[in-house]
């Protein structure tokens, strides 16, 4: 037995490896985002004027927050369908609060909303992990409960208004030029990114990868996952503050946003079912989705087709992620109906970009494409026929 040690690879090689790993499955979304931003520049020459571009980012901000929260839930192997309803409820609740307490400080109201969103997430998480209700059902139920509650509360047409200081996060600029919404996105994005590198984040992703292995490694999987729901709820409530600031009070403020968020996360290369994907990819997915809608709008495509586009994207993204690329690359010779001639070598991989699910660092790729050398075994030739 050798005593070879696991020497860490140093220098640029390691940097390159880490870069590939960091981008990982999110690589396609960055390419897509770049293409969409390029297309926007071609379609609309004024798109990159600072004001208009920042306005675009501001419009994307709520979805980016939702995607960051949704990422945490999806990477742990669950869904959160309640976030759109949390946005609606948050906007309506803020209006009702100001109706009752016109002088309330904006920060107090914002924090109250975020705490309430976290509470909704806590309920989602406890029901899912404690009672074993699939999250799809738990959060779908929560969505309906909240939507019905808002409708009952407001009679379908919310009253009240949101004061300017509360709306500032959604529509004002910091330092006179930087939208607060962008700043909020950046801070939340950085926080979630840091969280995914933390002890909790690593155990969360491990739980999404294999709940059984995580449990047997001592991970308190229920607790770890519940926190993901809590953060998703809180992020949704924060998104509600931005949406309310940006577009005012409406009983449809967050309608459909849960599916936009899931689409964005999936587009960002995060594996449905959990265990793989980065929050930066998910947030880039949210930007890409917003850019796509903007582009379609500029091209004169009807806005009512947005759900259709979204449906196509989500199916395509999941299909690409689910396809068993490794099988395609490795298995061709063993097709049942096509016996390989003796000594057939492994096939060459199909042309084209590396598939998203298998973006392994090049130095560590398994030896799939190396032609198998004939085994130089030191065998004795078989000693002729049997003796029976």
């Amino acid at each position, binding site marked *: 037995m050798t005593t070879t040690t696991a*020497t860490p690879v140093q220098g640029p090689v390691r940097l390159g490896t880490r870069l590939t790993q960091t981008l990982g499955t999110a690589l396609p979304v960055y390419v897509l985002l770049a293409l969409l931003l390029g297309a926007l520049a071609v379609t609309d020459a004024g798109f990159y004027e600072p004001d208009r571009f920042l306005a675009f980012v501001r419009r994307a901000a709520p979805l980016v927050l939702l995607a960051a929260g949704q990422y945490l839930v999806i990477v742990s192997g669950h869904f959160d369908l309640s976030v759109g309803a949390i946005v609606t409820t948050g906007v309506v609740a803020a209006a009702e609060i100001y109706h009752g307490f016109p002088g309330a400080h904006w920060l107090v109201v914002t924090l109250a909303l975020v705490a309430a969103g976290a509470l909704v997430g806590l309920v989602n998480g406890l029901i899912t992990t404690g009672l074993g209700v699939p999250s799809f059902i738990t959060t779908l139920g929560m969505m309906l409960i909240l939507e019905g509650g808002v409708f009952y509360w407001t009679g379908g047409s919310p009253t009240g208004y949101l004061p300017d200081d509360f709306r500032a996060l959604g529509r004002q600029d910091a330092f006179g030029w930087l939208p607060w919404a962008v700043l909020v996105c950046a801070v939340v994005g950085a926080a979630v990114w840091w969280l995914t590198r933390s002890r909790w984040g690593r155990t969360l*992703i491990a739980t999404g990868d294999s709940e059984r292995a995580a449990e047997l490694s001592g991970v308190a999987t229920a607790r770890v996952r519940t926190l993901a729901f809590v953060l998703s709820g809180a992020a949704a409530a924060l998104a509600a503050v931005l949406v309310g600031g940006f577009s005012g009070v409406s009983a449809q403020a967050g309608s459909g946003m849960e599916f936009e968020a899931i689409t964005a996360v999936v587009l960002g290369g995060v594996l449905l079912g959990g265990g793989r994907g980065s929050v930066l990819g998910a947030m880039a997915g949210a930007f890409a989705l917003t850019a796509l809608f903007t582009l379609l709008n500029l091209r004169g495509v009807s806005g009512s087709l947005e759900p259709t586009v979204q449906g196509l994207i989500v199916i395509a993204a999941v299909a690409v992620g689910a396809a068993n690329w490794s099988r395609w690359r490795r298995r061709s010779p063993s097709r049942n109906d096509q016996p390989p001639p003796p000594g057939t070598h492994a096939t060459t991989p199909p042309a084209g970009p590396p598939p998203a699910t298998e973006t392994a660092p090049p130095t560590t790729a398994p030896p799939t494409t190396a032609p198998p050398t004939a085994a130089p075994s030191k065998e004795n030739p078989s000693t002729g026929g049997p003796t029976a």
Partner: protein
Amino acid sequence: MLLMQDMTKSFLGIRVLHSVSLDLAPGEVHAVVGENGAGKSTLMKLLSGEHSPDSGRIEIDGTPRVFGHPAQAQAAGVGIIHQELALLPDRTVAENVFLGREPTRRGLVDRAAMARRTAELLAELNASEIAPDTPVRELSVALQQTVEVAKALAADVRILIMDEPTAALAEHEVTALFDLVRRLTARGLGILYVSHRMREIFELSQRITVLKDGRRVTCVRTADTDVDQIVRAMVGRELSAYYPPRADPGALGEPVLTVAGGGNDRLSDIDLTVRAGEVLGVAGLQGSGRSALARAIFGADPFTRGTMTVAGRAVRPRRPREAIRAGIALVGEDRKAEGLTLRQSVRDNTLLVTRAVGVGERGAGEETVTRLLDRVRLTSRSTGREVRFLSGGNQQKVVIAKWLAARPRVLLFDEPTRGVDVGAKAAIHTLVRELAAEGLAVLLISSELPELIGMSDRVLVLSDGRPAGELPAGPSEEEIMRGATATGADRAGAA
């Protein structure tokens, strides 16, 4: 009648068979031997249609065949009798023998004909004592095996693969099996006999093929060789040099793990003590409670009765998390499903336990990871690599590193070398011994008797969830099997 040529097979990019060839003549018993992980089972599964080869070809009676499904192999006259019998326990013998090929009369199953033909087949196998209408569940393992053989004959099988057929049999049943094998060869069947028991192989076979690390080392006439030669070919070294030296009995420390009167729905009357520096081997047949014992100590399927102490402190772990806090670690049987998060990096897997439970290593930096991986002699370059791309041996080393990070007092190993190559296996053996020498209490479960014998300072034999004896260092395989099959033999006698 059978020719397999240059069979090659990889799983997840790891080549498990390198261009292996094998042939078989009518009436011949051809033994296939090799250590666990040598590729025996994979080779047999290529022939039985359970796996498709990456390359290579199979000819039966001169006709090239490609099997994509076991049914195709069976239609071509290839049958397999697995280690784990594949009968439906609640159906009768006759129903099992004719499963999927029931004789019919006017569209209905002709039960009378089925029973009659089953009885005929069983008579040919000198097993008339089996009634065709007995539910299979009521038969001993040996008799179930006979039913499997009858099933193969009913399907006109001409090439029969027997995978470790004696693993679950008592001594007198083995004799009956040999008699059965001879009857089959007299009928002109060719038999591929997979086993690691030298005595059987030399008694039954005409030729022996030795596999090692997925390659054919040799294929010899049984008459021209002896046990030593075959064993050397299997392990590639002398057996005596194969395991690290045992602990000096005088150097053992205080008891670290004790269980008194432990029991749950799978186990009862478990009493054991493991001292610091000691490796306690646990032997038993499949389903004897070996793994259940490890899972009980680890709190995965906890004890419901009895008491347990770790380093003198009473503990009662109800979940793995609590066991880990108490200083217990389990390197489990199913590495891929239970030991690793396959899509995560080597680094993240190594740190998973400490991150989750907050015990052991404080540092989460690269030095900590590197030190742990050095400790287990991981021969992989990058800690950022996803563990699913590692070989079985390296994966197992990551699992061990993960537990060392938690600085446990008690290490439970359940089949630690299953599916790893011989090099990694030796490294794991050395490591187990080193860890014991550092004062850990080690419990080693293995179905591979040479490993158990070579590694253990004492061997606890389990049968039906109960202790069936404790043997001192260096017991013989026969001693262990006698204990392990004690109740099985009783059952067979009663049947």
